[in-house]
């Protein structure tokens, strides 16, 4: 069973993503801020990471950079959850080391299919 790390501070979104992924047969690991995201990623070595950009402590971009900076997280697919409003989020995400991005709001009908392109 593939394991997916979801770094997301919003409980509702976390719940939605977790629900969808579990229904699709994935094991979900959670982190609610950047620091724990980096820690969990290095410790658990997930098969994929879904990274929200807006996080309470360090943002998703910095978190991604730190994960990429570690030995364990150098080549794990990281999918950024970007906000439509924020100018340059997608580019910044790719620059920071993300493999791809999914723009919020999440569409349950296409979400899993998009994830699976990177697995």
């Amino acid at each position, binding site marked *: 069973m593939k394991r997916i790390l979801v770094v997301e501070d919003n409980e509702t979104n976390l719940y*939605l993503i977790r629900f969808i992924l579990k229904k699709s047969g994935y094991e979900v690991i959670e982190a609610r801020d950047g620091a724990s995201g980096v820690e969990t990623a290095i410790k658990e070595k997930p098969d994929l990471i879904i990274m929200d950009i807006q996080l309470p402590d360090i943002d998703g971009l910095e978190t991604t950079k730190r994960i990429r900076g570690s030995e364990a997280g150098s080549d794990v697919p990281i999918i950024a959850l970007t906000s*439509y409003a*924020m100018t*340059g989020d997608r580019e910044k995400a790719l620059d920071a080391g993300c493999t791809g991005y999914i723009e919020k709001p999440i569409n349950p009908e296409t979400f899993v299919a998009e994830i699976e392109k990177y697995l």
Partner: protein
Amino acid sequence: MKIFNKRFRFGLRTKFISVAVIITLFMAGMLILFFITQQRTILTEELKKRGIALTRNLAYNCEYGVITEDEVILGQLIEGIKKHQDISYAVVFNKEGKVLAASSEESIFQQFPGNDGLRSNEEQIQYHVFEETGPVFDITVPIVIQEEIKLEDEDWFIGDRQGKDISTGKAKYGEKAAIGLARVGISLKNTNAAINRNRNISISAIAFISIASGIIFSVLLVMIVIRPLHKFSQGADAIGKGDFNYHLDINSSDEIGVLAESFNAMTKELKEKNEMLEKASKELREYSESLEKIVKLRTHELEGKTIDLENEVAVRKQTEKKVRTEKAYIDQLFESAQEAIVMTDKDGRMLRVNSEFIRLFDYTIDEVLGSSLDDLIAPQEYHDNAVSVTKKVSDGEKVAFEAVRQRKDGTLLNVSVLASPIIVDGELVAVYGIYRDITALKRAEKALEERSKELAEANIRLKELDRLKSMFIASMSHELRTPLNSIIGFTGIILQGLVGEINEEQRKQLALVKNSANHLLALINDVIDVSKIEADQIELVIEEYDLADLIQEVNDSFKVAVDEKGLKLSLEMPERLTIKSDERRTKQVFMNLVSNAVKFTDRGEIVIKVAKKDERVEISVRDTGIGIEKKTMNKLFKAFSRIYTKDTLKEGTGLGLYISRKMANLLGGELSAKSEFGKGSKFTFTLPLKYKEEQRNEKDTGS
């Protein structure tokens, strides 16, 4: 020549003879005059003395006859004296003046000489010309008693032989009175006749002598002078005709002979000179001929030169005109320039200024010319600087700077100055200074600086505001959409049946929730796009992708909606169409067009065509919908302009086409529309195959 000679010959002879005769005549005349005068004097004196002697003799002899008044004796005495030659008359008076005896009856001789009677006892002699006798000496001698006569002089009888006036040699008769007077007239007739005869003879003789001497002189003259002269004349004629061999044959030892020798020598010399002259003349002729040739040659050359010269003159005139024209240009430029221009010598003394200079610094032309530029217009604190600039320019440097200068009245001016040297053949001849009054500019600059400062401050505040706005949008986006994410997400999950079975009514209602949420999301997204466009914060992601895939995907996504409305959707496009652009923005524009077409078309068809044209791709979406009224056509691409139709109010933000056109422009493309109201519309979206940065209207801030 000949005439001259003749005239000369005759003239000379005539003159010589005339002079000789005149001199002879004059001298003879003088001699005749002298001799005649001498003769007349001698003869007249002799006559006078003879008369006096006869009269004294008469008076002596009459003593007795008078005393006795014996007229017979006296008459005999008168007769006796009358017999003497030349005696015209003889009269004897007593002392009362009574005629005692007379030779003639004429009363004139019987008058007693002197009115006062016989008062004087002196002898008298007078010259008279009487009608009866002609010229006479009238001699009177007193008659005295003889014993009482005392002779003072022995020869008183004879008189003065020296020819002095006889009357001075007087006989003294003492104190005794005369007893009578003897009067005798002795005629000059014979004497004068003799004198005249002598004179005629003398004149004849002298005339003869004169003529003879004239002839002799003439002959001699011809022999001695005229003939040689004639030879000279002939010689001169011959020489005149060119006969230099003429030899003058005169061998006299006088001046003529010397002259002839000189003449011959001269002829010889002339001959030599003539020969030399002929030789020289020949040479000269030859030289002249060669000279003529040279002259002809030179003339020919000169004609050529003249043409060259004419051409050169023409060129020079043209050049002069050009120079004048250029000078006029420069003068005009100099005078009409809006800058104050001054020309100085290398020491900074002003040579020329234009009228703007006079106007700007308010000096008169007389005050300016010859003055030092720096002394005149550089204020004290700028003077050293001005002098150093003058020095630099004098060293051949061109200097541009800004400075402060002063007017005559001391007011200060900000000026920009361009000082440049005028160098001719490496030598500095003058310096040009061009002054532009930038006082107003400086003031404006200062104001601008202040304004800029204000603006910079305002800009800082604006940037802060902008940052706040961006933060606000980000926050709004996040905060508004987070709940929407949940709504959309969970309705999706339920509708998918992931949670469990739902009935039809629940499905229908949840679908409405989901649609409304999506619409709300679209609204929020549009508002965010507009704010980004207006803040110029649209960020493009340029990459290569297949447009055909994108079109197909969008086309497919509308299939359900099209089917539901019973419309026909057709698509024409190449199989693959790789372009380099922003995929997401291209999709946004295209989706907007198809979405509108579906929204506003109730029956008929929607035709999508994609075609490559040169370096661009053209995407057109045509529908058979309600169309657009002409009056609203111009509002079509404006923000917040919604198309209201009579019966339908379609949902939408009114921002779609506004955003689409802006996006199309940002991608370097265009978006245009054509429509026939009631029949349908056609939207055409073109964009370059390869996006180029400069094709964007505005720059990405990239924040």
